């Protein structure tokens, strides 16, 4: 059970940080699109 908890905590951490990083990266890409378009 302790091992499960460790796995859960780490997976959750990885998922949260990964999602945040990916979304920020996506946001930067969209920003690039808007900049390329000139708005």
């Amino acid at each position, binding site marked *: *059970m302790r*091992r*499960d*908890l*460790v*796995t*859960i*905590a*780490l*997976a*959750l*951490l*990885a*998922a*949260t*940080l*990964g*999602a*945040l*990083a*990916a*979304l*920020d*990266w*996506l*946001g*930067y*890409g*969209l*920003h*690039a*699109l*808007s*900049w*390329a*378009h*000139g*708005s």
Partner: protein
Amino acid sequence: MSGELLEWAQDVERFGAPVLAPLLIVTAALIAAGVAIVTAPRARTSSGRAWALAPATLLTLGAAGCLAALIAEDRDQLLAWVLEGSSRDVYSGSAPWPLFMQLRMLPLVELVLALAIPGTALAYARAFRRVGPLFLMAAAVSIAAAFAVGWLDAERLTLLRSIGPHEAWRAAGAEWATLRLAPVVVALLCMPALVFLRWRSHVSWTTSWRAPAIAGSLAALAALAFISTRGHAADARRWTPLATRTGTWVAPSELASIPSSACVEPAIAPVLDLREEVARLDGMRVDPETTRENLATMRRNWRILHPRGEPLDVVRLIAPLEREWPELEPYLVAAYRAGLTRARFVFRRPAIAHTDVRGPIDAPRGCDVPVRLSPYIDSSEYPRYEPGPFADERWPTVGALVREATRHRLGYAYLRSLTSAW
């Protein structure tokens, strides 16, 4: 990297803006599905898969609903874009990009967490009955932490920057940006690999150390990715430019000394380019007569295309400072006859923008200097008792007119500062 990014962005742009929204939704759904499948322990069974897919479904529905709400909100803007056809240069302000900017500005991170994590939590609660409540608590803490990070990023950015090695990052320049993006790519690539491993593995994940080891490695990678994208997030949030924009026109350097208080916000309006022998109205070759006709047509259509906006009464002019009045007059008269009472000379002021990812870069800013097309019509940009200059032969060149207009603008700004002080 940013140069390549811009090229890629321009390629995407050729396919058209509508491609982007589904792409965004699919990307978000994939992330959520990856999260759910990696973390849902019994995904090999059909019910396990169903639980794992629930967050992705929720997220997709949520994102689609969010897009639909935005489209409903900005339908006149979309209508304008559709009616004005594919020529995006015609009215850059009414292209649907602001729509996607709004989509980006939405708290998408919070959306992902709010929709995907409860779904994943349910999957956990089902599979690990004993630790389900603990997981839910962990999920609650994680959501709170994510909100806190978002709040810190938005509200306390300057404080965080002042204590971080911010200047060192800036100095590292564009090459470093590629390296900083690498962990993100690795983390994204790891996700499907892990899903595959999870699916194929015959090892019991709950009794082996392999699962925590992989989860730990992934967490480390994700942390690296998160740290490495702080600069990107900050740049995107602050709307900093990404590169020196290589425009097709360059402002006269004399205007470098214009203070920003002399400029007005760029208007969404037709652009009359008088730099060359042949004048161009929004890119189309025109003579004075067709200028009048086209502007009158635009003015008539403006109410349909921009039902919530102001009526069209301004034309933006691009002309070199040394251009003389007789060359300009027929076009300005044409604009006035079409019903446009105001004009703005469009210039650029050189400026440096400080970005996190690429360091300080040249980012010239637009500067619209308003002038009147008639002495008889007052303009809100000038005080009533001291009307700004109108275009006529008293100012023999564009430069003289713009200098006069700048002088008036500065006087107006000074008066306004006095009144606001009262």
